[in-house]
């Protein structure tokens, strides 16, 4: 087996507050292989972004990694200091966020921004870096890259800006890209372009991608495997066709039933009663139990079983078995 690009082992993030200790990410373990897109889904507040930010060392204080390990290409990175972590970002880990403007400097031309990142991480001359920047813009589909390289970010549309951000994330040839809601602010047609781009780059270069989104459709379209998060924990993880097509965790089942496109022909959408609990008021036992239609006797007492990186698919005492699946 090839070594995974990224390995999380029991990653736990804590936030000390006046009202007690919050745990937005709780013992999360998974691997992402080279060239693989892992989709991380869940509703807002599930801890998706926190998990991603923990990997790249961008947790805002007072949030901190309180347990577990993060491995990148066989090297442990969760205990690196500020400066080595900064070097790692950009060189080995590229980042794409929802709002492209947060990643772009409005005062620099896109060419200068990309060149600077290249020069910081690769031993090249200015002229070579500029050539690379043009090639990078060309690769992400900026038309007439040679002419646009000296434009400022504001001169680009939202979709074009996100392409520039992807070019920036890729220019030092990182082995991992963390994309947090990269298409959430974009129109469907532009979203399709960006997803196709991410898929192509990941396939051509063997880059691993952590694709964080709340959109099941984007996951279905882009991901090889999917990790479903609920209240800071992994609820279910597995190949995308298995998890979306035959979900085992009751929360995944509920999510699919609530998604209009996935429950085609149904007059009413399936409802999950209630809402995601606040971190400060997580229910005892399995955090999903107050909303769970399969809740068993001890679900309100026993924490749900943990998910090891190479273990079960769902963190549930009573998962939906294959024989219970409704044929499509």
């Amino acid at each position: 087996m090839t070594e995974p690009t990224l390995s999380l082992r029991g990653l736990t993030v804590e936030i000390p507050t006046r009202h007690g200790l919050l745990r937005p990410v709780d013992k999360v373990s998974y691997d992402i292989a080279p060239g693989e897109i892992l989709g991380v889904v869940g509703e807002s507040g599930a801890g998706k972004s926190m998990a991603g930010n923990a990997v790249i060392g961008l947790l805002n204080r007072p949030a901190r990694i309180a347990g577990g390990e993060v491995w990148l290409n066989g090297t442990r990175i969760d205990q690196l200091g500020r400066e080595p972590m900064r070097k790692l970002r950009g060189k080995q880990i590229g980042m794409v966020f929802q709002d492209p403007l947060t990643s772009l400097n409005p005062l620099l031309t896109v060419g200068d921004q990309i060149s600077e990142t290249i020069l910081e991480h690769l031993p090249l001359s200015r002229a070579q870096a500029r050539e690379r920047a043009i090639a990078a813009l060309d690769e992400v589909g900026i038309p007439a890259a040679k002419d646009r390289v000296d434009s400022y970010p504001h001169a680009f549309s939202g979709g074009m800006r996100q392409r520039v951000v992807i070019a920036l994330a890729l220019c030092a040839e990182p082995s991992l890209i963390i994309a947090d809601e990269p298409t959430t602010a974009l129109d469907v047609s532009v979203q399709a372009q960006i997803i196709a781009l991410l898929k192509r780059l990941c396939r051509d270069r063997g880059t691993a991608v952590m694709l964080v989104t709340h959109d099941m459709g984007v996951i279905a379209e882009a991901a090889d495997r999917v990790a479903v998060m609920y209240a800071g924990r992994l609820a279910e993880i597995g190949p995308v066709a298995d998890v979306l097509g035959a979900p085992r965790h009751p929360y995944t089942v509920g999510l699919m039933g609530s998604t209009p496109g996935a429950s085609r022909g149904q007059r009413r959408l399936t409802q999950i009663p209630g809402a995601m609990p606040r971190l400060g008021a997580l229910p005892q036992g399995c955090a999903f139990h107050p909303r769970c239609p399969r809740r068993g006797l001890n679900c309100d007492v026993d924490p749900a079983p943990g998910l090891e990186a190479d273990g079960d698919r769902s963190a549930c005492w009573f998962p939906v078995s294959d024989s219970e699946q409704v044929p499509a």
Partner: protein
Amino acid sequence: MTDETKVPLVRVSNLTRIFDVSKPWLNRVIERLPRARLTAVSNVSFDIPDRSVYALVGESGSGKSTIGKMVVGLLDASEGEVEVRAPDGQDDARGAGRTGVQMIFQDPYASLNPRWRVRDIIAEPVAARGGDTKGVAEALLEQVGLSVEDAGKFPHEFSGGQRQRICIARALADNPRLIVCDEPTSALDVSVQAQVLNLMSDLREEFGLTYLFISHDLTVVQHMADTIGVLYLGRLVEEAGADDLFETPRHPYTQMLFEAAPRMDAYGRDVEPPQGEIPDPINPPTGCAFHPRCPRAVDRCAAERPEMRRVGTSRVACHLAE
């Protein structure tokens, strides 16, 4: 079915809205710029049958919200008109809004006054026309799945989904016939969205409501709508029954949009993504606004704007559609 039921509740005719987006006068003089006009909605016509759900879809900037605001009367039309059939033959009142028409917005945070109690928020439309507000909020809160005790609380004490329920209750307070829903669930998580969409379907049956449902989300629209109108750059390019539209999209833009939308059942599908981007609405392309991106475009498309015409059970604005 009598003819009476076929009279549409809403008739939108040749609706156009132009915004003046010129720079200030002095800049124009110094920089020698002409006045700039943006046509947000261009010559749009459609009918909404009573007790049906008519959805408008389109990408950002296609004019959905602008049409919605003109339908409720929050914005004046530059040309054309909106007629809403008034109950028992009254003329529809002009001014701040039309009688019997209410609106629900995307952002349930911004659209509720944070200093008002829920009771007063919900009863406000009744109070505004001098009606009796006693018990109005309490009854409606139960209708929308909240509880009577919630009447005394303030908006910040509620989640996004609950706030949208409050907005819906407020919209219902005035016994509307038509509710314009502008992206009512776009800010909500899917599980909460499902709750709100189900609620909207139930209320529609119970009160015999008509919805103009605005959304950019094709799956939501497919789930909710009876009829769908597709907008591109302020123009209505296609209109069809929901099932027909998804089965046989006839306009090249609709086809492109459907092809691009993520599919839940096509894992690892490799699509050729759409080409190009939506053009600048201040300088829209000539003829058919879609022609620079259209794979089927012919010479005529750049020269002549296609009229809306009937093709099968659909209406399509494309020279080549059949």
